[in-house]
């Protein structure tokens, strides 16, 4: 009898209190990491002011460097956001980036700017391969992309006979060295950062404004419900892994443009971890179905600001690794905290 009473009483007030709480959670989730980014910037600026006597962080030149450094990770993170929203993971993006950079620089030696489409195609191909294995053979994403991370790394080394390929006259280097005027004469956006912003914008459009986007969220939220609603889950899975591969390919072209060179062994090492860290820092849940592309942009900026700041503060690269690792763990802890909060009905 008391149980019945409790159930009856429960039906009404559930509306009021948790509503405010979920609004707050939702607000925390979307704006979530922006305050962290701002605080991080202020701390680093203060730190450089204290240790170096001048605030070197918040200079136009340094901020432009930060944006450049964040660009490739943002692009990889955008692809990773699609994948993680479906509840999957793509460990192969670093290797795909290396392979795409190899084909891109190699192709640019003979075919000039065709190096860019070649990079995109290389990435798309490997991404589709991941997607086919996951969507049709139904292997777990972690296993598939762990395998392709290793195999594609090997292929990247194979393609350059395990050497570095150079092209000092890389025809599309302008996407890195050039810049896009925002306020002509005053504010310019580095080329790579502009590309990253376009990728973020397109990703937002796909996730929020298209049928495919809703279905990506649906597959991540409840694959059974998605399937029973008549959604072709394989289309969604194929798309997200292909998109992740394609964007890793774009990352390869961006990286080639920045370095005028590509190396199958070193390029893109552990980039997948930075991309995952950016996505998780951005509030996207590892379980799938919850998250946003803006969060990923913020997450990538946090990582770039942190790296840049630690260098400016003269922290040794050994300690940089330790701090970065702790940030990744902290990010997953945050993910858990958020999940616990939202699991309440």
């Amino acid at each position, binding site marked *: 009898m008391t149980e019945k009473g409790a159930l009856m009483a429960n039906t009404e007030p559930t509306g009021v209190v948790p*509503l405010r709480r979920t609004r707050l959670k939702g607000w925390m989730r979307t704006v979530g990491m922006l305050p962290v980014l701002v605080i991080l910037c202020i701390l680093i600026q203060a730190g450089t002011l204290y240790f170096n006597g001048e605030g070197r962080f918040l200079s136009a030149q340094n901020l432009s460097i930060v944006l450049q450094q964040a660009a490739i990770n943002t692009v990889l993170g955008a692809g990773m956001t699609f994948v993680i929203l479906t509840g999957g993971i793509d460990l192969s993006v670093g290797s795909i980036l290396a392979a795409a950079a190899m084909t891109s620089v190699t192709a640019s030696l003979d075919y000039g700017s065709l190096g860019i489409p070649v990079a995109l195609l290389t990435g798309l191909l490997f991404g589709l391969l991941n997607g086919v294995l996951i969507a049709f053979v139904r292997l777990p994403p972690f296993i598939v992309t762990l395998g392709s991370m290793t195999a594609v790394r090997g292929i990247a080394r194979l393609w350059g006979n395990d050497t570095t390929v150079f092209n000092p006259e890389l025809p599309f280097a302008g996407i890195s060295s050039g810049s896009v005027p925002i306020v002509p004469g005053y504010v310019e956006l580095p080329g790579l950062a502009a590309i990253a912003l376009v990728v973020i914008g397109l990703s937002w459009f796909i996730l929020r404004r298209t049928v495919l986007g809703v279905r990506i969220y649906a597959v991540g939220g*409840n694959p059974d*419900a998605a399937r029973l*609603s008549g959604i072709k889950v394989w289309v969604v899975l194929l798309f997200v892994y292909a998109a992740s591969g394609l964007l890793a390919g774009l990352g390869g072209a961006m990286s080639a443009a920045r370095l005028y060179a590509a190396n199958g062994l070193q390029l893109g090492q552990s980039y997948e971890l930075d991309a995952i860290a950016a996505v998780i820092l951005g509030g996207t849940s590892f379980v799938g179905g919850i998250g946003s592309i803006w969060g990923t942009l913020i997450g990538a900026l946090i990582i770039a600001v942190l790296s840049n700041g630690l260098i400016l503060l003269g922290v040794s690269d050994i300690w940089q690794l330790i701090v970065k690792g702790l940030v990744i763990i902290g990010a997953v802890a945050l993910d858990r905290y958020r999940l616990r909060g939202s699991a309440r009905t």
Partner: protein
Amino acid sequence: MTSSPMGVGPLVEMRNISIHFGGIKAVDDVSIDLYPGEVVALLGHNGAGKSTLVKVLSGAYRANSGQILIDGRTVEIGSPRDAKALGIETIYQTLALAENIDAPGNLFLGRELTTPWGTLDDAAMEHAARQAILELNPNFTRIKEPVKNLSGGQRQSVAIARALHFKARILIMDEPTAALGPHETRQVADLITRLKAKGIGIFLISHDIHDVFSLADRISVMKNGKLVGTVRTQDVTQDDVLGMIILGKRPKIAA
């Protein structure tokens, strides 16, 4: 087969359906039917095969043998999409909503409305969803919230609104009240009565006889994958049906 309670042809006939998973016969040569405006309860213990049987109708499983007839015509149901095209909608206790998406998103999941440019028409979907849901449940206001923040009854309203919006003629309700409190269970019972009046045929699946005895016109009982029998609710007592569920024996009365 069974005499027609409405004097019209059956809406659904499932004939001699068998499904096995590996060596296990989940459903063994079962035949059931459903008439327009009728509620047929499928009763049986967990694992009796009732959910598996109707999943053939909703397109989630394929039968190894047997026939499905809709309006007297043989049909092939290969996917949930095929089932929906035939006017068959399913309301699952837990499975069918994406908890992270709001009510309009769930209502149109898999059948999203788009603008002429091919982008999502959020305004049209929200408008249609609001109408469909408010018709069922006037207290439902939190339409833009992820459905995981809603109560069980509200979630069930979303699922039922989805079925109604797409003009379901055959409704499969798999344990629709299992997660609900008594007040909400009554709401769902009211809804079922109203759906019946619209001429919709309903398969109501449950393992609890008390949930369905007052709602069902006929009761089909399954045990260990086999059909124990189909009886008219007015001809039997709850004890008779309980005997069918537990012992797998048909009651003495003719049905």
